[in-house]
């Protein structure tokens, strides 16, 4: 086979294979489904939308101890953390990723996934966190914040249900 012929063959092959490579790239993009079937975020009643209070309020970007509102929030998530690491100062009804992209509270998993990548990966395939619904159909996911309060994410200990009856207690 001459060089010219071989050249032509490679060109032809790449012409036919090109759409395949594009579809591969597309598949990689679609790896993160745009929406997961999640229940609404567990807001404190009456607190959302945040803009109902924050609308028109001057934005103070300086890290400080909050004294008028939200005093109950003690941030125990990361050292030197601050509200605007996650909350968006300009539109309070959204969260902000590190790259400046805004996400809604319903998609807060993207925000958590920025640092907790391995857990996010497990969550997407259904390993981390609880799934309810159908094993062969529609599953209900939970948001990270349903189990981990974002300002102090350590899972709270709970009271166990009673132990089984001992054989000695059976009459």
């Amino acid at each position, binding site marked *: 086979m001459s060089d010219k012929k071989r050249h032509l063959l490679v060109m032809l092959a790449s012409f036919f294979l090109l759409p395949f490579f594009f579809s591969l790239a597309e598949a990689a993009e679609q790896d993160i489904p745009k929406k997961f079937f999640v229940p609404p975020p567990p807001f404190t009643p009456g607190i959302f939308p945040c803009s109902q209070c924050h609308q028109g309020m001057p934005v103070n970007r300086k890290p400080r101890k909050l004294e008028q509102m939200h005093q109950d929030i003690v941030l125990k998530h990361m050292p030197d953390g601050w509200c605007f690491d996650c909350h968006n100062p300009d539109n309070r009804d959204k969260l902000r990723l590190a790259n400046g992209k805004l996400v809604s509270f319903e998609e807060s998993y993207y925000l958590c996934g920025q640092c907790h990548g391995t857990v996010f990966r497990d969550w997407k395939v259904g390993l981390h966190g609880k799934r309810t619904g159908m094993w062969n159909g529609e599953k209900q996911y939970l948001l990270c914040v349903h*189990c981990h309060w974002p300002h102090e994410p350590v899972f709270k200990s*709970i009271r166990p249900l009673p*132990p089984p009856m001992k054989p000695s207690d059976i009459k």
Partner: protein
Amino acid sequence: MKREKNKRRELSLDRRTFLKGAALGLAGTALPLDKADASFWETFFQKHFREMNDTEIKKVLQRLEKEAEQKYKKAIKIGNEKAMPGVLFGYGLDLSRCIGCRRCVYACVDENNQSKDPQIHWITVLRFKKGEKFSDLEESEKYYNPPQVPEKEYFYMPVQCQQCENPPCVRSCPTQATWKDPDGIVVIDYNWCIGCRYCMAACPYGARHFNWSEPGRKPEEINPNTHYLGNRPRYKGVVEKCTFCIQRTRNGRYPACVEACPVGARKFGNLLDPNSEMRYLIEHKRVFRLKEALNTNPKFYYFFAYGR
């Protein structure tokens, strides 16, 4: 001559004929003729579950539903969903997440109509001290009762029926009242079980439980959605165990324990589906099965999602 021979035959009762007659006579005295209604005789002559055709099974289910309704004064549906083709159920339990709260134990009792008095739990949660050998189940504690879980120095391992691919319980049953269905669930026919408890002795996981007396459960606590081979009302003197919530999973739903777990440590799916979460965890996580050396080949996978 001929007559004489016949006469002799009438008189001399050979051993076989005698035994036949005796057996029939004894059966006659053993069966209480006063309650010989249709339902009683139908129960007595019920065929093995796997030898019945659909119409015969339907008849049996109708009879059992009627009996259950009389007993509990409420409508109870007894289903007979068959195994789906191309499905082999597998279960995953994340030991790095389980906090030992026993929510699964009681969700199982509510779903599967276990007796409350005497108490029967299909799931046992074992507690081990961290750093100790835990392949030896004898070292575990199942009556732990601290004010809060998880405790710092312990970890927890729930044990239930492991739905073995090579189940020793099935081989030990003298009446074939227990068998493995095509989707991998080991099931029991409570109408065929004679209560010899050989299967309980054969099971290396302590997963089978015996009804020592009439199951004690209030009618309002009965879950009316049942399956013939699963959570239908049981009798005194039969063995029962976890069936992966056959009445739910054969309709596509997750088992009750999966949905009850507050930390999401319990996973369930189809082992034959390459995209299922079960396949993902087997391929990507550290996995082990309980007492693997016994060659029971369980479909219950313990894994560690956290820390690799």
